[in-house]
């Protein structure tokens, strides 16, 4: 028996060590979220869903705002499914923040989906859809290798980590949290992709409703972050087709945000009023060029608001 156990123990070491080595190779090309749980705690965050994850580039913001705030910003945005405002996202971003930070800054991106829910009782946080997803289940969000995420939530088989080293990648989660994707990954034209998105969000429209509770949690999030630094409320630009759906979901959305802006004395930037024509991959997510331009534009607006 001892011989058997010793042999098994010794043999197990080699594949486990190799697997650990494979995990070390993951640099954001195989999984769109993993690295967000392996990077250190941060002093400044971008919050929101996939529009912010793809559309706001921390490195561009840092060029103008690092001097102003003395902190590099990290994109901690996920998706409509995973990171609407609520107890789960608030707890997760609290963990991601450096406890000692007092002078950071926070870009809170908002849209009607981020304060809406598709459950029967949209004001019951116990039933919020994200409760069963990874943000709720992951305790440590800054560990070098996040085994909870790797074993339970990694979106692909691990061979993809190696495969992505060999083939061209259409997406990459950068070390600053920016999720870079190219339109090529979808393989169709922009109008086709936009039509798909419109259909998709029209379907959402039949299920989602404004949630007072989520709105309260957005307020709580702002209150908490104000103790850690400056807060900026941002509504990202969209294609008109998608904007109309959002406005149908919550016609009072902008008034709510203006109310919050006054209540907490924070700036609210609504970029859909802007005359600048941004380019989108699918009506929702900005192209790489537009994301760069937009991030630069946003950093200028933030600087202006502080004068």
């Amino acid at each position, binding site marked *: 028996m001892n011989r*058997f156990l010793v042999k098994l123990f010794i*043999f197990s070491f080699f594949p486990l060590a190799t697997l650990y080595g494979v995990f070390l190779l993951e640099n954001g090309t195989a999984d769109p979220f993993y690295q967000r749980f392996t990077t250190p705690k941060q002093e400044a965050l971008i919050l929101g869903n996939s529009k912010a994850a793809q559309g706001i580039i921390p490195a561009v913001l840092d060029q103008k705002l690092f001097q102003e705030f003395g902190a590099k910003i990290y994109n901690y945005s996920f998706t409509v499914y995973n990171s609407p405002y609520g107890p789960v996202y608030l707890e997760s971003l609290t963990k991601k923040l450096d406890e000692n930070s007092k002078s950071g800054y926070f870009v809170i991106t908002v849209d009607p989906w981020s304060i809406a829910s598709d459950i029967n009782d949209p004001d019951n946080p116990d039933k919020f859809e994200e409760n069963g997803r990874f943000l709720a289940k992951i305790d440590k969000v800054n560990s070098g290798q996040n085994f909870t995420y790797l074993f339970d939530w990694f979106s692909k*088989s*691990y061979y993809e980590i190696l495969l992505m080293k060999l083939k061209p990648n259409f997406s990459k989660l950068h070390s600053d949290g920016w999720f870079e994707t190219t339109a090529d990954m979808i393989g169709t034209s922009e109008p086709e992709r936009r039509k798909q998105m419109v259909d998709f969000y029209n379907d959402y429209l039949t299920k989602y409703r404004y949630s007072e509770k989520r709105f309260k949690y957005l307020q709580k999030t702002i209150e908490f972050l104000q103790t850690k630094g400056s807060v900026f409320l941002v509504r990202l630009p969209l294609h008109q087709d998608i904007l109309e759906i959002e406005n149908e979901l919550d016609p009072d959305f902008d008034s709510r945000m203006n109310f919050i802006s006054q209540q907490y004395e924070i700036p609210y930037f609504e970029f859909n009023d802007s005359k600048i024509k941004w380019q989108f991959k699918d009506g929702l997510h900005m192209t790489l060029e537009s994301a760069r331009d937009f991030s630069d534009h946003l950093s200028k607006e933030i600087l202006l608001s502080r004068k």
Partner: protein
Amino acid sequence: MLFNSFEFLLFFPLVFLLFWFVFQKNLKAQNSFILLASYVFYGWWDWRFLGLIAFSSLVDYICGLKIGAAEDTFKRKVYLGISLGVNLGLLGFFKYFNFFIDSTVQMINTIGFQANPYSLQLILPVGISFYTFQTMSYTIDIYRRKMVPTKDAVAFFAYVSFFPQLVAGPIERAANLLPQFFKKKVFDYGLAMDGMRQILWGLFMKVVIADNCAVFVNQAFNNPESQPASNLLIGAVFFSFQIYGDFGGYSNIAIGTGKLLGFNLMQNFAFPYFSRDIAEFWRRWHISLSTWFRDYVYIPLGGSKGSKYQSLRNILIIFLVSGFWHGANWTFIIWGGIHAALFIPLYLFGKNRINIGIVSQNKALPSFYELGQMLVTFSLVTLGWVFFRSPDIISAVGYIQGLFDMSIFQKPQMDIRVYLFIILVLIFMMLEWGGRREEFAIQKMAFHKPILIRYGLYYGLVMAVFLFARKEQEFIYFQF
């Protein structure tokens, strides 16, 4: 609890260590522990159905004793009838109730009368098709005086619920497995190592081959009408490997797990895709079920002893029953019928037992003729699987029609990873070919090579399992 789950990864080492280090003192302790572990294993899925397996075990335990004690044939028949009635009743109720009701309603509606569909929201208890067959073999064998009943209730209950093979077989005969519960287990290094190799091979079959083929199979079968024939061909061929990897993999893990606890379970698959005709395929595929039907249905019906007509009837019956055993759907019955139709000509021409041994026993490679035979058999089996996988007969016929189209020469419209898995399937088949003389492919593979090569092979397989694992995928045969 799934074999390929994190829970089992914790459960089994704990069971293994407790079994060999704490409960090794005496036989009673070993059996009691196996019984407890088996009930935990089964109850993990749904504890409410533990009552069902305990009830089935109790009925057969008592009926076995009564049949054994009775000299009067009538009494023996009564107790056998109770045992069969209870087991088939449970199976019939949980597995076939809705099928019979729906089919009857459809038939009544077809002939012009009106009947309303009525069905119960029944959950199919996992493994019920396996353990009911296993316990029936016990009472039938006692009735036939092929074995004596046991008074050791713990051993009997442990035999019925033995967790490695409880939910998806192999369907063990009492004559093989039950006596193993009467002998105190002593750790056997060679058997344990063999078990580890078999588990590794089973995991490779399930996690690397079956689960990854499933992705492309689902794409092909979910929407066949909108896909080129080349996609459908890949879907059908990959399903052949999915079902083999899934079920053969489960059997290997089950048998290997049994070996680690000192038990020898029967071989369930013997390299079926190297069969040279359908008859050989059925001697190599799901052996525990086909021999069960042979011994408890085909032979009692008269087997091949009666007239040609009776023999053909018996063959047809066991193939149809075998199909129906797999599920309450006409597709499974048609699948059984197809195999009967392929088998019967061989039987009529006396060719059903010409390919008994291992293909190319003393050669490294098959002859072109043997290769042709294997490819034809594989193709026929694959066509049969289309019915097995499709949700209904119309879909299956549509799928097969879709295969016969010029678009079979088109480049498949599938994710580029399909080529990676074609290569993996080829590697899998090469390893199977290399190990076809053994119980499972890697049983003695590279034994005479330097240790680095042998352990390199195991290392490669373990890494493949780690790297290609998808999120926990259920075993297909759990539903049967």
